[in-house]
C-alpha cells in the first residue's frame, strides 16, 4: 500500500506556513509533527540506515524552513515538502556513494528513488525489533479502537481521514449539520487517541 491518499487540509497547512513566515516558529512545529512520519517513511524507501533516515528527515525540514517564504500555496504543501525530501535524500546518497567508508548496506538500490515504488512490507525507518513491535502495537490499537467506535463516529472519521472529504461533503453524505460532523470526528479521534497516547513518546527518545 502506497501513500497514495492525499494529505488532508491544505488550508490549514497554508495558514501554518504563513504564520511561520510571519514569525511564529511554533506553527512550523505543528507542520513537522503532522508530516514527520510520512517524510521518514518516504526517505526510508531510499535509504536503509535508520540513523541516516532520521538525519535526512531533519535536513529536509531545515531546508523547508529556510525556503518557506518561497512556498506560494499554489501547490499542496506536502507535495512541496515531498520534493524537498526526495532532493535531500538524493543529494545525501550521492555524497555517500563518493565516501568509501560507507557500506553498501546503508543504501537501497537506485530504483527506490522513484517515488511511486514501494517494497511491500519492508520495515519503516526504525528497524530495531523493539520499535517494529511498538509500531505494530500502535497499529493494532488504532484498528481495535476503530472497531469499537459507534458507527456514526467511525463513519465520520473514515470519511475525513481515509476518503479525505471536507466537512461540507461529509455533512451531505451523513445528512447531518456541519457542527455534528465536527463533533463526531473529534469524538472518534479522542476515543482512539486515548488508547494510543500511552504508546507514544512516553520515553524521551530511545535513541540517545
Amino acid at each position, binding site marked *: 500500500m502506497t501513500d497514495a491518499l492525499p494529505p488532508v487540509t491544505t488550508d490549514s497547512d497554508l*495558514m501554518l506556513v*504563513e504564520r511561520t*513566515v*510571519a*514569525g511564529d*516558529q511554533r506553527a512550523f512545529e505543528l507542520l513537522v509533527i503532522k508530516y514527520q512520519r510520512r517524510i521518514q517513511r518516504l526517505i526510508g524507501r531510499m535509504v536503509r540506515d535508520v540513523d541516516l533516515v532520521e538525519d535526512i528527515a531533519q535536513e529536509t525540514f531545515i531546508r523547508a*524552513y*529556510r525556503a518557506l*517564504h*518561497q512556498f506560494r500555496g499554489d501547490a499542496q504543501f506536502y507535495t512541496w515538502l515531498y520534493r524537498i525530501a526526495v532532493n535531500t535524500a538524493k543529494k545525501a546518497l550521492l555524497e555517500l556513494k563518493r565516501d568509501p567508508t560507507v557500506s553498501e548496506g546503508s543504501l537501497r538500490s537506485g530504483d527506490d528513488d522513484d517515488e511511486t515504488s514501494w517494497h511491500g512490507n519492508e520495515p519503516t525507518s526504525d528497524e530495531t525489533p523493539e520499535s517494529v513491535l511498538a509500531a505494530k502495537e500502535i497499529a493494532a490499537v488504532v484498528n481495535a479502537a476503530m472497531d469499537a467506535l459507534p458507527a456514526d463516529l467511525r463513519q465520520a472519521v473514515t470519511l475525513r481521514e481515509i476518503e479525505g472529504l471536507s466537512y461540507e461533503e461529509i455533512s451531505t453524505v451523513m445528512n447531518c449539520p456541519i457542527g455534528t460532523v465536527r463533533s463526531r470526528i473529534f469524538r472518534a479521534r479522542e476515543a482512539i487517541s486515548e488508547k494510543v497516547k500511552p504508546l507514544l513518546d512516553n520515553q524521551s527518545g530511545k535513541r540517545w
Partner: protein
Amino acid sequence: MRPMQITLFTGCWLRRVRDAALALAAVAGACSVGVAQTAVSPAPGLSSGPVETAQPDRGINEWLLRMHEASRRRAYIGTFVVSSGSSMASAKIWHICDGQNQMERVESLSGPPRSTFRRDDQVITFLPESKHAVAERRESLGLFPNLLQSADSSIAQFYSARQAGHDRVAGFDADVVVLQPKDKLRYGYRVWSEKRTGLVVKLQTLDVDGRVLEQSAFSELQLDAPVNMTKLNQMMSNTEGYKVDRPEMIKTTAAVEGWVLKAPVAGFKAMSCFKRPVAATETAAADNTMQWIFSDGLASVSLFVELFDRRHHGQEGQMVIGATQTITRRIGDWWLTVVGEAPAQTLAAFAQGLERKK
C-alpha cells in the same frame, strides 16, 4: 526568531548602478513621452479590454470611494501580509470608527517588534526593544475624499477601472477590480474589494507588463469585529517607560524653499511640502531636508532635497524595494532622492524637471 527574518526580509535596497549618461538618455526619452502626450495608448501587457462605454471613468471614482470609505468606517481585526519577490512582512491590525473618530492599532508580526497607534491623524509608534516612541501628525490621511471631489480630479483621466471577476480572500467573497493606467508613467493595480463593504482585502501592484511587483493581503480577517476604542485609547496614551520623540516637521512650500518643477509629470499633482530640520554633526552643518510630495491619486512620489555632502552622497543611482523605486541625483549644491511607487522613468522625469529657482 530574528535571524529567520533576515533570510526572509533582508532589508536591502537593490541597486542597479547605471552610467550617468545612460540614465540621462532614459530621462530625455521619458520626458518627451510624459509631457507631450495627451491621448495615450494603453501600456503593453495591460492591453485593452472591452471597448469603453459612454461613461467609463465614473466607475473608477465610485469603486475607489467605496473602498476608501470601508477602510475608514468599518471595524475590523486582521492579519496583514505584504510580500514582494521572496520577501514578506506582516502585521496584525485593529481598526474602529465611532462615526466621528477613527482608531487603529498595528502590531508587527515580523521584524523587530513595534506597536503603532493612530487616532485620526495622530500617530505614535512604540518600539519596545529600545523603549522609544515616535509621535507625529499625519495630516494627509484625510486627503483622499478631497482628491476625488475636487473639480480637476484626474484619477479617471489616467486610470480606468474594470471588474475582473470574483475571488475569495481570508474567507470573504471579493470583487476583483483592475485599475489600469492609461500611460506608461504609472503602475496598475489589481484590487480585491470585499463584496459587502468594499474593504480592500488584497492588493497587487502591477508593472507595465502585468507582473506583480508587490502584494498586500489579509491572511485572516474579522469584519465588524468588536474592537474596543476605549482600550485602544488607553494603550495609545500609555507612554510610561518610553522616551517619546516628536520629530519636527514644518509645513512649507517648494517655492519658499527655492525649488520648482519646470516640467510637470503628467497626472501628478503637488500635494504638500515639508521640511525637517537635521541636526549638525561632526561631519555636516545643520540642514533641512525638504520633502515635496506628488500624487496622481493612486501613486505618490516624494522628492527629498538636502545639501550635497561628499561624505554621504556618492553614487547617483537607482534602487528598488518591491513596488517602490528610488533614484538619487546631484543637482548643483544639492542632493536629490526621488522615492515613489511608479516606474523608474517617471521618477527620472521628476529628477529632470526639478530646478533651483532663479
